[in-house]
């Protein structure tokens, strides 16, 4: 990582793992060990100093670590979804459109996109009356569920989840676990950071302890 004044902060090194279609890999380890950083490297938000991140799409394999910005934009539209910890709300955009946007961008009609967005929002228990409002003033848990719906709406082969259930109650945690199980059945490869033991037990096929890759700072 690169910080103020040109300082460099080593985070992780020598990380190696593979995820198959329909598999859920959970990255584990204490806070600050670099789990979210790994997700961001896969998504292309952080650059890697060394190594490769290979994503296979049919017969084509793309190295995110070496991809041009344009390729990364295309990867995000068509291959890799990411649910961050916090919703980055835009002024004035309604909840339903926040959720529908990723599939409108790839050519689904707005009407159809809104219909699918509404259905998914119902599954994560966002009340109908909130759909026409911008999510900026929603509670932390509501915003997180809007964010989850946005990330889960497109059917992408790879899904990255950063603490998707951190501020949810038991009912909503269960709803999200259901959605993850559904994605796995559809063949989505999932890489998740989850602290909640029950959720982890419910979704993980493989658990990787990231602390063994941590760089001595």
């Amino acid at each position, binding site marked *: *990582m*690169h*910080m*103020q*004044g*040109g300082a460099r902060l080593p985070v992780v090194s020598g990380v190696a793992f593979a995820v198959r279609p329909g598999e859920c890999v959970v990255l584990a380890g204490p806070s600050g060990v670099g789990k979210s950083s790994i997700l*961001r490297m896969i998504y*292309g*938000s*952080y*650059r890697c100093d060394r190594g490769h991140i290979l994503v296979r799409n049919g017969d084509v394999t793309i190295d995110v670590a070496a991809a041009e*910005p*344009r390729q*990364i*934009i295309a990867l995000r539209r068509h291959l890799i979804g990411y649910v961050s910890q916090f919703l980055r709300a*835009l*002024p*004035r*955009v309604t909840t339903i459109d926040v959720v529908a946007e990723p599939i*409108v*961008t790839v*050519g689904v009609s707005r009407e159809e996109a809104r219909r699918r967005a509404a259905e998914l929002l119902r599954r994560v228990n966002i009340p109908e009356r909130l759909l026409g409002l911008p999510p900026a003033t929603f509670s932390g848990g509501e915003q997180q569920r809007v964010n989850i719906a946005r990330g889960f709406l497109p059917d992408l082969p790879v899904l990255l989840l950063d603490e998707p259930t951190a501020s949810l109650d038991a009912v909503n945690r269960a709803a999200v676990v259901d959605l993850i199980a559904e994605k796995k059945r559809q063949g989505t490869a999932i890489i998740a950071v989850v602290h909640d033991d029950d959720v982890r037990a419910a979704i993980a096929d493989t658990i990787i302890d990231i602390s063994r890759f941590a760089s001595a700072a």
Partner: protein
Amino acid sequence: MKQIAHDQPLLVAEGLSKWYGRQIGCRDVSLALYEGEVLAVAGESGSGKTTLLQLLSGQLEPTAGRVLYRMRDGVTRELAALGQAERRFLFRTDWGYVHQDPVLGLRMAVSAGANVGERLMAVGWRHYGRIRGTASSWLDRVEIDRSRIDDAPITYSGGMRQRLQIARNLITQPRLVFMDEPTGGLDVSVQARLLDLVRGLVAELGLAVIVVTHDLAVARLLSHRIMVMKGGEAIETGLTDQVLDDPHEPYTQLLVSSILPP
């Protein structure tokens, strides 16, 4: 929303430099912009952003380097080699230029409808009713009440003027729009509305945009890619979230860490 149809860039800059006497405006900048792509050029005042924008849009002659543009017929041409008529065509039809100060981009004394309709007339529209109808629908799109169509922009607020300038630019369905600090000088709430509007139109129309801004929040909201300039040079480029979340250059780090939390 249009897909990114061509794998050829729309606009290419190669080794652009501009000296004002012995003063450097911009040094050795190269970039390629594709259809539907939004590029932010960020940096502080005096970093060469506006010089670069003027070079890219053919308003300034570079001291060295060249700008190439893929015309609507698919042929890529060098800007400096275009004739007057071809340049006029670009400026009136295929390009838009949104100034920071709407006064520079509008005719303040004529009606809003005439401001928006003017570019249509420039490309040969003659039917008054159709021009007015198209102008009205563009006022709707930029959220200006149709009842204000006969008022001159001198009677408009700053935010309305800026939205009118945007409508005036987009009415001919340009493929590339240059924006120079489009939200500079507006109140924060007015800024948010304008940004959201611009963001929606850009996505819907599949526009390529080069937006100059000193405001990294604007860059984050609007752009796919970012170029950070300092002292006339492009010091860091990449995906916007890459550069803003993990800036490599000390100067970019300083800019990013100077953002005040909301």
